[in-house]
């Protein structure tokens, strides 16, 4: 029996002071909730919630070959990025399996950054170093960087007291900027994982507590934990690496083909994906809404006319819809929107249907262009 020492982010004292329920997530001691998952979920859908996601990894890539390096490691087209833009992308292995889903930020032509999932951070950085090239310096800034995500229709207002030199409200969706936040240089991106408007603030760890306190105080943002983060991203139809996809999953099976650009030069996994693009995947990720009352969960069978056709990978009761929702893989052609399916819950077959994602779409607020793309864990 081993005693595992859990890592703590710079914001750990804030969570303890707020009485958060803490949990081991990917080796980090993180807040699962403060006042309650549903209350925090609603706060994000109606106002602004603030999440500590400092367990995620922030890696900078600098130099004349920075963009070329990112291009060869990711599936999306770095060539579409201009200064101050970010894009969702995937890191694949040689077989085209998804090692991680990431967001790549282009701050300047010679300065990009990649944000990786906590669970894959060590492996991801090692993999980047394995593929290192001249002219692209890999600066692993995980330990020095805290990440605070502020999400919800009131997110821009919540950031106002931070006195950003470049105001948050002016950032376009998926825009990013390096600017002073409470006087300290930070990277702010208009990205998120909740299906709402929102911002992710990459701030030096030494200043994280100050920023958090202002967001919660003057900013009136509600502290929200990983529990609400999961219910929110599920309603937004967003995948979680390690649960909805892993290194054995191809982007086409995960329905992430939109983020794979096969005509922009070589990248790791390209050959395998070109082959799969010809035939298409055998099974595909879909969203399912239950018509019968009940809660679908990871591992529950998906059936059609009494025959098993797939399995749930993520599921739960949608707080906003009041119905069970799920992500899962089904055999094609049962992945067509509108297909009637059943999910087996404790021996009973509950009726549902394949739907288009997201399950919930936030009403357009008119501030910043509405963009929907796979977000960020």
């Amino acid at each position, binding site marked *: 029996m081993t005693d595992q020492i859990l890592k703590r982010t710079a914001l750990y004292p804030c969570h303890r002071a707020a009485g958060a*329920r803490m949990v081991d997530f990917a080796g980090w001691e993180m807040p699962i*909730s403060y006042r*309650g*998952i*549903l*209350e925090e979920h609603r706060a994000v859908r109606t106002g602004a919630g603030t999440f500590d996601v400092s367990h995620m990894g922030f890696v900078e890539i600098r130099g004349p070959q920075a963009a070329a390096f990112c291009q060869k490691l990711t599936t999306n087209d770095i060539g579409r990025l201009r200064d101050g833009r970010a894009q969702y992308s995937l890191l694949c292995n040689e077989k085209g399996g998804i090692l991680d889903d990431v967001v790549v930020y282009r701050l300047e032509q010679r300065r990009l950054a990649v944000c990786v999932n906590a669970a894959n951070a060590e492996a991801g950085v090692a993999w980047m170093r394995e593929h290192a090239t001249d002219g692209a310096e890999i600066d692993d800034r995980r330990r020095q960087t805290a990440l605070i995500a502020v999400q919800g229709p009131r997110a821009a207002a919540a950031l106002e007291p931070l006195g950003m030199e470049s105001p948050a409200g002016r950032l376009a969706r998926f825009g990013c900027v390096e600017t002073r936040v409470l006087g300290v240089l930070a990277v702010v991106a208009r990205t998120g994982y909740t299906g709402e408007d929102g911002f992710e603030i990459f701030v030096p760890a030494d200043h994280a507590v100050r920023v958090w306190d202002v967001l919660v105080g003057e900013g009136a943002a509600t502290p929200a934990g990983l*529990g609400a983060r999961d*219910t929110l991203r599920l309603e937004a139809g967003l995948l979680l690496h390690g649960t909805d996809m892993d290194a054995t999953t191809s982007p086409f099976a995960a329905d992430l083909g939109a983020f794979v650009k096969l005509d922009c030069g070589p990248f790791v996994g390209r050959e395998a994906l070109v082959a799969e693009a010809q035939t298409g995947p055998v099974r595909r990720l879909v969203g399912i809404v239950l018509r019968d*009352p*009940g*809660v679908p*969960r990871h591992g529950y069978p998906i059936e059609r006319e009494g025959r098993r056709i797939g399995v749930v990978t993520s599921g*739960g*009761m949608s*707080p906003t819809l009041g119905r069970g929702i799920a992500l899962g893989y089904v055999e094609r052609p049962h992945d067509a929107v509108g297909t009637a399916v059943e999910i087996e819950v*404790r021996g009973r077959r509950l009726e549902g249907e394949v739907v288009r994602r997201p399950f919930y779409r936030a009403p357009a607020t008119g501030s910043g262009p509405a963009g929907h793309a796979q977000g960020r864990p």
Partner: protein
Amino acid sequence: MECPQELRYTKEHEWVRIEGEIGTVGITDFAQHELGDVVFVELPASGTSLTKGQAFGVVESVKAVSDIYAPVGGVVVEVNADVGRQPELVNQEPYGGGWLVRLRIADAGELGDLMDAGAYREYTREKD
């Protein structure tokens, strides 16, 4: 954690209120706090016969599925319809509006091994 004096408690964190031959059953404040936000409750139909210790329903939170066990044997005479529509009642009023079922108790002798409020409080303290 609240544990009303007049109730009896099980090791699985159910409570029962005895009024004549009718027992009202729910889960305790300790249990709802452990579970977190309740999102779904599955209960048997009226008329169902239960034996003591039998798993008769399920309380589901965001993350967990928790079986509920009959503190005493009997026949279900009433099921709380409100918790179907408002599962959060189990969190907000575990001893009041969040009650789950009412049973006609078959054998009052089966109540003998249930804990009183003091013993249950001690039991939950040990669990922390």
